[in-house]
């Protein structure tokens, strides 16, 4: 690891108030942990094929530095973030953390529908039994089956959405078809019905399409840097399609893409809407205001490394409700939390570190506070 990267520091070293971490990853170490939750026909499927992982585009190459901080890679070869004890040790028990929201990027968003439904059920049941029920500080996102059967996606949301531990439905950003499109309405109806947040997160199969308008990036680093434009396309499509007028209570989080790109993008959206309004006439107020009400962004990756420059971006956002602290465990970013704590200003730090997330995800007041180690 380059010596110029910021060393790992627990947020509790820099902030002594409560913490809610809205983006903590859980990795399914292999299908063997899911077997107990699979129906017999799918156990036979798995066994016959010697199948251990879904075939999908992993957004995190196993050995890439971005995939895990060295401190978060177990020495004994266990996969990072694959066991509750690891997350307790690295995140929950570090002091100040009231809640963490688990996002499991198990890549089943594409492929045979019935298989992906079975896998989604198994992952969600596993999350409930071995994570949510095991540690009251945890909350989680529902893992969804393949999007090519929107009714099945809605059914899975309805099946588990009532569990108080599920606060969000995870929608991988590379969805091959933009999420504002009307064929997704059954999914958002279910999300609204269950009072969940729609969490748009890095990852997804993109249904085999290239992740840029001009073909395939050739390097992971190139893809990673230009990923902002994937989220930008999703955001403007959701606004343009009137998703927030069709579902007026809808909450959307955009996760693991930072937020320094947001004000400029929204200025562009406002400017063009003023003249093009009649093509999208359900938008009856400036898109920036719609996004202020309906969308939140997590802090990691921060990208900015100077608080005096980041201050401008935060001021242009025009609201201190919009940014939510995330560690993005176990992924590595060269983030320095002090940069955003300073840029945020003293009065707003509690919102950044906990209050915004509590409000957004309807979290209970802290039931237990883990002791610092």
């Amino acid at each position: 690891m380059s010596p110029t990267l910021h060393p790992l520091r627990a947020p509790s070293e820099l902030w002594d108030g409560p913490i809610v971490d809205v983006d903590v990853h859980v990795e399914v170490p292999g299908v063997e942990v899911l077997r107990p939750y699979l129906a017999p026909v799918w156990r036979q499927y798995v066994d016959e094929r010697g199948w251990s992982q879904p075939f999908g585009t992993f957004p995190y190459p196993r050995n890439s530095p971005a995939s895990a901080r060295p401190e978060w890679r177990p020495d004994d070869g266990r996969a990072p973030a694959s066991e509750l004890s690891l997350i307790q040790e690295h995140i929950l028990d570090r002091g100040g953390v009231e809640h963490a929201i688990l996002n499991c990027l198990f890549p089943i968003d594409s492929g045979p529908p019935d298989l992906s439904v079975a896998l989604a059920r198994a992952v969600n049941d596993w999350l409930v039994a071995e994570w949510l029920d095991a540690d009251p500080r945890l909350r989680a996102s529902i893992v969804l089956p393949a999007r090519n059967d929107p009714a099945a996606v809605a059914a899975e949301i309805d099946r588990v959405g009532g569990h108080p531990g599920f606060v969000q439905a995870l929608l991988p950003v590379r969805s091959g078809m933009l999420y504002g499109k009307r064929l997704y309405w059954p999914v958002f109806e279910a999300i609204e019905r269950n009072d969940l947040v729609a969490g748009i997160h890095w990852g997804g199969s993109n249904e085999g399409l290239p992740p840029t308008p001009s073909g395939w990036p050739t390097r992971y680093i190139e893809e990673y840097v230009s990923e902002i434009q994937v989220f930008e396309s999703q955001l403007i499509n959701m606004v343009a399609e009137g998703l927030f007028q069709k579902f007026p209570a809808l909450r959307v989080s955009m996760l693991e893409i930072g937020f320094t790109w947001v004000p400029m993008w929204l200025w562009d959206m406002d400017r063009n809407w003023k003249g093009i309004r009649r093509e999208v006439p359900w938008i009856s107020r400036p898109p920036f205001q719609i996004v202020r009400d309906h969308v939140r962004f997590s802090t990691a990756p921060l990208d900015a490394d100077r608080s005096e420059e980041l201050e401008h971006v935060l001021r242009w956002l025009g609201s201190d409700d919009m940014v939510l602290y995330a560690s993005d465990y176990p992924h590595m970013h060269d983030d320095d939390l002090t940069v955003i704590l300073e840029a945020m200003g003293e009065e707003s730090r509690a919102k950044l570190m906990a209050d915004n997330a509590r409000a957004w995800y309807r979290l209970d007041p802290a039931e237990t506070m883990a002791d610092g180690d």
Partner: protein
Amino acid sequence: MATEPDPPRKRSRQGRVVVARVSDIPENSRLIVTVRGREIGIFNVAGKLYAIGNRCPHRGGDLCKGDIIGRVYAERPGEVALDPTMKFITCPWHGWEFDIETGQSWYDPASPPPATPSPDARHFGVEVANGADLEAQLAEGQVGVVDERAQAAYVDPTTHRVRGPFQADVFPVDRDDEYVVLTLRSARATQR
């Protein structure tokens, strides 16, 4: 007549100016007149007259050369409808919509001012007056007359460019004819 009537004062205390004959602006046409250096578009939309300044408050485009359209609205996606009674003049540049009656810019209908002040187009009071009444008003200085050297032109609805020049032949007024009178004092929309 033995003598030419005195040319009327160009200005009146109320800022009222005779700019054209009503017959010069038939239904679905529009005329851009220049009054005291200011270009004003007079529109005849379904028999009613409107007057809007020919400068878009956004970035200065020639507003009065744009399309006139009804109001497109929708509560939600899938429910798009047209309100034909509300007419907008749209700027030929960036397409902003302005209520042709009040000049109010429409892009922000949900938020009332002054929270989001939206730049409105200038609109002007426009009235129809008959020649007989105008004769008296002209004599008393209650109304002026547009300078006959001022440029005016029609807007071609297909090319959106002007056809002209049009000579405003309004003095002396004909007692039997009807005239378009503009009120030039600034008339920002007062009602939302």
